[in-house]
């Protein structure tokens, strides 16, 4: 089974229908474990119970960038290999990525209020994630503005790849600039600075959120394929009536 085999939408639908229930189950189980572990994790000696926002905030923030990465790969698939499912994948991922980005901003803002004393601060990390959110919205507007999906796909692919330049800026913004947002503490040279009591629930939640994205993405791709089929059936019917 290779990527080429999946180019047939019918085969993709059949395969994804078989995989999807397992993915849903795995997501629910991992989310339950992660949430339980997060809830029972000890309070931080400085932040108290608010440290638990981290278990939601950090996975959302990771996913906000990961989804753009997935869309960039899909865009390469659209432009370079003309893979027929690539633009479906890119289109289906955009609203999900926007939702993750919005939740990252929202939870970060709710966390910032008790910790920094402000809901919002124009520092580099927050600003670059806000730009990411705006680009997600722009991309969704682009998909909606054009009727022909293949034409919209190629335009969106170019824009996605240009927007991918923002990802390293977000990742390294806390190292390059002196920001209110703390620097990287999990994925950094010399190991994580996070205590095990926090690190393990965080990693479980990160995996659970990634599974959640894969599940939602697969379901959204199926919907998009079916939507396109309905559309072409409607067009055929309209054409038959006219003739």
């Amino acid at each position: 089974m290779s990527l080429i085999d999946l180019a047939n939408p019918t085969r993709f639908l059949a395969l994804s229908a078989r995989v999807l229930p397992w993915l849903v189950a795995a997501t629910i189980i991992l989310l339950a474990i992660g949430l339980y572990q997060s809830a029972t994790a000890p309070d931080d000696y400085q932040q108290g119970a608010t440290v638990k926002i981290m278990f939601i905030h950090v996975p959302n923030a990771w996913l906000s960038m990961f989804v753009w990465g997935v869309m960039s790969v899909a865009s390469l698939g659209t432009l370079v290999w003309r893979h027929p499912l690539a633009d479906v994948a890119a289109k289906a991922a955009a609203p999900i990525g926007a939702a993750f980005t919005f939740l990252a901003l929202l939870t970060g803002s709710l966390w910032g209020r008790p910790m920094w004393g402000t809901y919002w601060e124009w520092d580099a990390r927050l600003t670059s994630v806000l730009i990411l959110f705006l680009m997600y919205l722009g991309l969704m507007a682009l998909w909606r503005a054009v009727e022909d999906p293949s034409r919209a796909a190629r335009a969106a692919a170019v824009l996605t790849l240009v927007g991918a330049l923002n990802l390293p800026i977000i990742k390294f913004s806390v190292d390059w600039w002196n920001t209110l947002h703390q620097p990287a503490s999990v994925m950094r040279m010399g190991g994580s600075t996070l205590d095990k009591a926090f690190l393990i629930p965080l990693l479980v939640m990160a995996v659970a959120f990634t599974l959640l994205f894969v599940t939602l993405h697969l379901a959204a791709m199926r919907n998009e394929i079916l939507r396109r089929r309905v559309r072409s059936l409607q067009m055929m019917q309209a054409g038959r009536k006219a003739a």
Partner: protein
Amino acid sequence: MTALSALIRRDIKIALRVGGGALIGVLFFLTVVVLMPFALGPDLALLSRLGPAILWLGALLASLLTLDRLFMADHEDGSLDLITMSRTPLELACAAKALAHWLAAGLPLVVAAPVLGLLLNLDMAATGAVALTLLAGTPALTFTGMIGAALAVTLHRGGLLMAVLVLPLSIPVLIFGVAASQAAITGPLSFGAPFSILCALTLVSLVIGPFAAAASLKHGLD
């Protein structure tokens, strides 16, 4: 080479002649800046503090406004098809078109900035700093905006969609442009650091812009 210089000369000529509309951007720039004191009140101290930001915002909006001319007119009269089919690489042709557009529409904004600085009560040093940052930064606005213009022309949609696509890409330029001008006026940070980043952004956009615009033209036109 002659093809590219011919393209640049042609685009500048078209932009400056009747119906070209390149200088409307400057007029818009002037209008936006004149609107600001009405909104903020004629407090000269406040205006001189906000001056660099106002000038940068005005220049950003003015360059955005003229961008849809970059490919639209050529698409309408068919010369864009000739350019895409010619032997000159499309990336170079896009770069040449953007350069011509900047010379006709971007450079006048830079020249107009010191005059508008007088209206905003900026002193000589501040005016010089803003003009210098605009000189370094407006090419980045044109070259990243070109991506949006190319997308808009392939989608037959201009206006608001292009603004929504282009503005997020121009935020870094705005941040460092204003930061450099503010640093030159008030300190305490140095002018050099944000200005170098601004120049770096311009150089990056000079590379990325033509390739992305050419890619979207190649894939989008039919």
